[in-house]
C-alpha cells in the first residue's frame, strides 16, 4: 500500500481485546479505511496476542497512555460494560470518535450524558448494533420499505439462550457475572430493543412496557436470566423474551404487518415470508414453497458455518458503513436519537425486575 493511501486511513485504537474484540479486529486489520495504531488490555498477554494477530502498531496496558501516544481518530471501546462510561468519556475528550459495544451504559441517563459530551466534542459516539446489518434483517427491511408487509403491527424477538452456562453464570468466578442492574439479560437487551424500535418505527418513544424480569435459575452470578415483556409503542406492539431454560438455542425475529409476516432466526438463519394472498386455498402452496426455501436455507447455513459467516456477520458490514461515512464526511449510519431511544426502552424493561 502506498504511503499516500496509508495517510488517508483513519487511525484506530481498540480498548479491550477479549471476546467481542475478535469480531471487530478482523475488519480493522483488513479494511483499507482503517489503520490499527494500538490495542489495549489490562492483560499484557491478551494485548500482545491481539497486536501480533491483527498487526497493530503497538500494544498498551493503559488506555490513557495509548490515547496520548497514538492520538487515534477512532476508538473502539470493547471492555466490560461497567468500564464503558469512563473510557468513552476519556476517548471523546482525547478527540476521537467512539464506537462502543452494547450496552454502552447501565441507564438512559448515562447514555444521554455521553451523547451530549460527544456532541460538545464534535465527535461521533456510536453504540454497536450489528444485528441490523445481518443478511435477513436487510432483506426484511426491503420488504418493509417496499410495502410488501404493509403497516408493521407486531415485532416479536424471542431469544432462547442459557445465560447460566456462559461466563455470566460461571460459579467458579467471584462477584456478579456482569455489573448491570438487569444482570445477564441486560447484556443482550440492547439487541432486542434496537431491533424492536427499528421495525416498529418508534425512534423516540418506548411506549408502554409490561411483563417480568426475574431470576428463574437461582444462580446469583447471572443476576436475571428471564425476561418476558410486552411492549406497546404507537401503532406497533411486540413481545420481547429472553429465556435461559429453553432448548434449542434460538434468536427469532418475527415482523407482522397488515399484509404479511416475515420471520427469521439469527442463530440458524432462514427467511419465511407469508403474505395475505397466501391464505385459504393457496396456503398449502405457500407451505410447500416455504419448505423448499427452508431446505435451501439449511444448505446455505452449512456453507456459512464452513465459511465462518456466523451470527456476527453483520459486524464488518456495520463497521464498514461507519468508516465509509467517517471517511466521506457523511452522516452516521446509527443516529444518536436511536441510541438514546434504545437505552430508554432497555431502562423500561430493566424496571420490570422482580425481587424474587
Amino acid at each position, binding site marked *: 500500500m502506498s504511503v499516500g493511501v496509508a495517510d488517508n486511513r483513519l487511525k484506530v485504537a481498540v480498548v479491550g481485546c477479549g471476546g467481542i474484540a475478535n469480531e471487530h479486529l478482523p475488519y480493522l486489520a483488513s479494511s483499507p479505511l482503517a489503520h490499527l495504531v494500538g490495542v489495549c488490555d489490562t492483560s499484557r498477554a*491478551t494485548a500482545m496476542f491481539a497486536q501480533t*494477530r491483527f498487526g497493530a502498531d503497538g500494544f498498551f496496558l493503559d488506555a490513557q497512555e495509548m490515547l496520548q501516544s497514538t492520538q487515534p481518530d477512532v476508538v473502539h471501546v470493547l471492555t466490560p460494560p461497567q468500564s464503558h462510561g469512563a473510557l468513552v468519556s476519556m476517548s471523546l475528550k482525547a478527540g476521537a470518535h467512539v464506537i462502543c459495544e452494547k450496552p454502552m451504559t447501565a441507564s438512559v441517563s448515562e447514555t444521554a450524558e455521553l451523547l451530549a459530551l460527544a456532541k460538545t466534542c464534535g465527535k461521533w459516539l456510536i453504540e454497536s448494533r450489528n444485528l441490523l446489518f445481518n443478511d435477513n434483517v436487510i432483506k426484511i427491511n426491503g420488504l418493509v420499505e417496499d410495502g410488501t408487509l404493509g403497516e408493521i403491527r407486531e415485532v416479536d424477538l424471542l431469544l432462547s439462550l442459557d445465560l447460566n452456562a456462559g461466563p455470566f453464570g460461571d460459579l467458579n468466578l467471584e462477584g456478579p457475572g456482569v455489573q448491570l442492574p438487569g444482570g445477564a439479560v441486560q447484556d443482550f437487551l440492547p439487541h432486542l430493543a434496537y431491533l424492536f424500535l427499528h421495525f416498529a418505527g418508534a425512534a423516540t418513544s418506548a411506549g408502554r412496557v409490561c411483563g417480568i424480569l426475574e431470576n428463574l435459575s437461582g444462580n446469583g452470578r447471572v443476576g436475571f436470566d428471564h425476561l418476558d415483556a410486552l411492549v406497546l409503542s404507537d401503532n406497533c406492539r411486540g413481545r420481547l423474551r429472553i429465556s435461559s431454560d429453553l432448548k434449542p438455542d434460538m434468536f427469532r425475529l418475527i415482523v407482522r404487518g397488515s399484509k404479511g409476516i416475515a420471520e427469521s432466526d439469527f442463530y440458524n438463519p432462514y427467511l419465511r415470508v407469508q403474505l395475505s394472498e397466501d391464505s385459504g386455498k393457496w396456503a398449502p402452496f405457500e407451505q410447500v414453497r416455504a419448505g423448499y426455501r427452508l431446505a435451501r436455507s439449511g444448505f446455505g447455513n452449512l456453507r456459512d458455518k464452513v*465459511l465462518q459467516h456466523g451470527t456476527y456477520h453483520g459486524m464488518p458490514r456495520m463497521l464498514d458503513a461507519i468508516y465509509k461515512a467517517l471517511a466521506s464526511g457523511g452522516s452516521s449510519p446509527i443516529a444518536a436519537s436511536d441510541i438514546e431511544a434504545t437505552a430508554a426502552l432497555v431502562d423500561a424493561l430493566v424496571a420490570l425486575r422482580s425481587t424474587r
Partner: protein
Amino acid sequence: MRVLVTGASGFLGKAVVRAAAAAGHRVVALVRPTADVSNLGWPDNVEVIKGDLRQMGAWRDHLDVDLVIHLAAAPSGDIATQFAGTVQATENLLDSLPLRSLRRFIHISSFSVYDYSIRPKHGIIDEATALESQPQARDAYTITKMLQESLVIDRCDDTGLECVIIRPGAIYGPGKDWDCGTALSFKSFDLLFGPLGAFRLTYVDNCADAIVRAIDADVGKARVFNIVDDECPSLWKYHNACRRAGARAGFVIPVPWLLIAALGRMVRLVNRLAFRNRAKLPELLEYRRQQARWRPLRYSNALARNVLGWTPSVKLAEGVARTVVKKADSAG
C-alpha cells in the same frame, strides 16, 4: 518440599496430587470452587485451596510454596474461552507468585505444540523437534498452549527461575479412553484413521510419576521432557486392547493414512482455490490437523528416562484394563 499444584482436580491433576503426596511432599492443591474433592482419595495433609486463576482472588494468599506444578488450562471452548482459561490464567498465576524465591516451576505443556507438517529426523518426535510454525492453522488448543508455554519460559528467564517443561502425549486412564482410538463411529463400526501409526499414549499415573520426579531431579541443561510410555501401540492395537479388556468397541474399518492425507490435501486445495482459505473445517478434513493426529510417526521418551530417572510402571494391558473397568463401573 511445599508444592503448589494448579488444575489439581483435573484428570491429570488428581493423579499428580496423589503422587506428590506419596513422595513425601506437602501439597497445596488449587481446585476450582465448584470442584468436588470429597472422593478424590487424597491424604489428609493435602491442603485444598479453592479458586479460579482467571480471577485474582483469595488463592493468592496461599502462594508461600517452594515449587509450582502448573496444570491449569482450558482444553475446550472457543478461542476466547481457551485464551482466558489457559493464557490469562497463567499470566495471573505468574504475576502473583514470588518467582524469585521459587526453586523450580514445572509447566505441563502438550505434544500439540510440535510441528507435524515436517517429517522429523528418523521419523521420531523428540524434544528437539521444531515447534508448530502456524498454530493458527491448527486449533485454539494449539494456539493457547503455545502462548502459555512461551509466557512461562519468558517469565522464568526474566526472573532467573528454573523452568521445566513437561509435554505429555495422549493421557489415558480411568475416565478417559480416547474412544479406543476411534476417529468416527457409525453404529457398530469404528473407523480407525492411520490404524498402523503409533498412538503417543501415556497412562495417567505414569505421567504423574514423571511430573513428580521432575520436582527434585537434577535436570542439568535439559528443560523440556516428552512423556510417552515405552509402549506406543498402533491405534489398531490399542483398539484391540480395549476390546479385549471388555470395552464396547465396534467392528474396525481401517482407513489408511495415505487415503486420509489425500483427502486432506484435496480439501486444502479446494479451500485455497475456491474459498481463499476462509473455510473452517472439522479436524477430519483439515490436512494440518490430520497430520498432528494421525500422521505415522514414532515418539521418544529417552530424555525423561535418562534425566528424570523415570520408568513408566503401568504397562499398556494393565492401563487399558483399569480404564475399561472404570468405564464399565460408571456405565453400570
